[in-house]
């Protein structure tokens, strides 16, 4: 015992509290994992009805190939899958460029001040607006054209795409802004000091450095868009056929799941469960692709 030990008497609890905190955090992590497993298990069981894995795959294949029907044995999600893929492409093409552009303007061009704070706060609030409200907005502005018959698009694919694009726009803006903020100012200064214009700095340094973060935001927002049901019900996604163009009526995978699930015939529950599996598969494929792309970009930005 050293002489200075007389001045220090640490609480005995400090050695216990660390592990306790660690266990608490572990349990918090497990909450998500456990409930996800329960959900997956329940859906799998509902879809397979005790059949083998191969039979379940057969069922999913059949569901993916056939369109909506009143007969549970003939019913499927072909129109919904096609509609969701269309919507995905539309949201990507509409929301990502606009959202990234807005974020670049706010972070790189707009001088800090009251106006920027107000805009910033509004975007944050928009991200928290319930999706049904966007549905009402889409219905009024896109479907009905604010009452003007020339502007009204009807319940067309483009109206659904625009509505979902608006819905995820704040998420894209906020995620991109976060990504841009992580680019160190020393990088910007180094580039400016060589006689680069702002545009050259953003194009060659800021944007490549922020790209992984921007892509993460894009993935999150697309995942949100593909799972949305309420706004699509609002804009009238109720078609039963595969859309072939932007002006066609459409439906989406989650909308069809919702409709099948509310049918009285219990055999439709199997169909709905199969639809959920298809939706999950679509989501996972999409996220995996996006992560692969992101990792590739992340590497090349360094090299």
């Amino acid at each position: 015992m050293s002489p200075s030990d007389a001045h220090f008497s640490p609480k005995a609890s400090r050695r216990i509290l660390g592990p306790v905190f660690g266990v608490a955090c572990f349990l918090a992590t497990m909450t998500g994992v456990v409930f996800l497993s329960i959900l997956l298990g329940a859906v799998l069981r509902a879809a397979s009805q005790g059949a083998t894995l191969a039979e379940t795959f057969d069922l999913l294949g059949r569901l993916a190939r056939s369109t909506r029907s009143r007969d549970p044995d003939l019913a499927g999600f072909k129109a919904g899958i096609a509609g969701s893929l269309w919507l995905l492409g539309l949201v990507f093409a509409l929301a990502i460029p606009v959202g990234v552009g807005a974020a670049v303007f706010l972070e790189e061009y707009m001088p800090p001040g009251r106006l920027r704070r107000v805009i910033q706060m509004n975007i944050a609030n928009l991200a928290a607006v319930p999706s049904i409200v966007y549905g009402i907005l889409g219905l009024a502005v896109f479907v009905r054209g604010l009452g003007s018959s020339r502007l009204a698009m009807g319940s067309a694919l483009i109206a659904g795409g625009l509505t979902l694009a608006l819905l995820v726009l704040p998420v894209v803006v906020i995620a991109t802004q976060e990504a841009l903020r992580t680019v160190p100012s020393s990088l910007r200064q180094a580039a400016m000091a060589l006689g680069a214009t702002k545009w050259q700095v953003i194009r060659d340094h800021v944007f490549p450095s922020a790209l992984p973060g921007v892509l993460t935001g894009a993935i999150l927002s697309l995942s949100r868009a593909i799972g949305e049901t309420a706004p699509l019900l609002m804009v009238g996604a109720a078609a039963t056929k595969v859309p072939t163009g932007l002006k066609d009526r459409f439906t989406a995978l989650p909308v069809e799941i919702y409709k099948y699930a509310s049918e009285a015939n219990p055999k439709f529950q199997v169909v709905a469960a199969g639809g959920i599996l298809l939706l999950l598969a679509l989501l996972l494929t999409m996220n995996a692709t996006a992560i692969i792309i992101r990792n590739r970009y992340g590497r090349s930005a360094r090299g």
Partner: protein
Amino acid sequence: MSPIMPEVKAVPNVSSGGAEPLPAGTDVPSTAVLSTRDLNVWYGISLALRDITIAIPRNQITALIGPSGCGKSTLLRCFNRMNDLIPSARMTGEITFEGLDLNSAETDPVSLRRRIGMVFQKPNPFPKSIYQNVAWGARINGYRGDMDELVERSLRRAALWDEVKDKLNKSGLDLSGGQQQRLCIARTLAVDPEVILMDEPCSALDPISTARVEDLMDDLKSEYTIVIVTHNMQQARRTSDMTACLMLDDGAQHGHRTGIIAEFSPTDRLFTNPKDPRTEAYITGRIG
């Protein structure tokens, strides 16, 4: 690229202390590349630099020393208008580069910064290959010569070529700190500047890397004019020809820190026979 140099206005009073005319031999007024006269720099309502009058001689190394917070870096950043990036910063008074009024709205900071390069305190290579680090600045400035040749020449000039010639495609971030700083110098040289501003370029480096950078500076001054901010008085003494000692103004508004030039003299003289008592106190370690 350099225009025919217009007559640089004579700067009669280089030491803001007032008394000392420049010694024979340094011949500053006729060869001044950068000069300021009664330059004031403000950050919002706070005066950061007051009445700065200084003339940076061509092809020499000028050191800016002084205690923390006295505005050395601020002054350095006036020369390439990097203070423009701080929205609240503004300056009054005269500041000229080869006769060009730097404080004029017509002066384009973008083209100015190619002519006045800057090396930062912390090595900040781009997260790109060594080759791209050097080539980028030249490319965005529309360099039309042989890029491979320029990259090699710049890296040789920065005494880095032999260490990196076999790994030009490796990331600049994989180099050691000292190598990164020389890469930053090579990147600056590649756009063919006339002046190189260095903001404490060695403060993040070990003594051996520091010595290499100092050797390099000595080597470069035959072609470039160098202004270096340093906290290290020994470094100022070893490397520079002229030294400006900045001090905090005792008469500054309460709560604000305003820098002034206490003394601007040839380095030998400033360190052996300082005219200003504050300079003497600083270099002997009594203040700062």
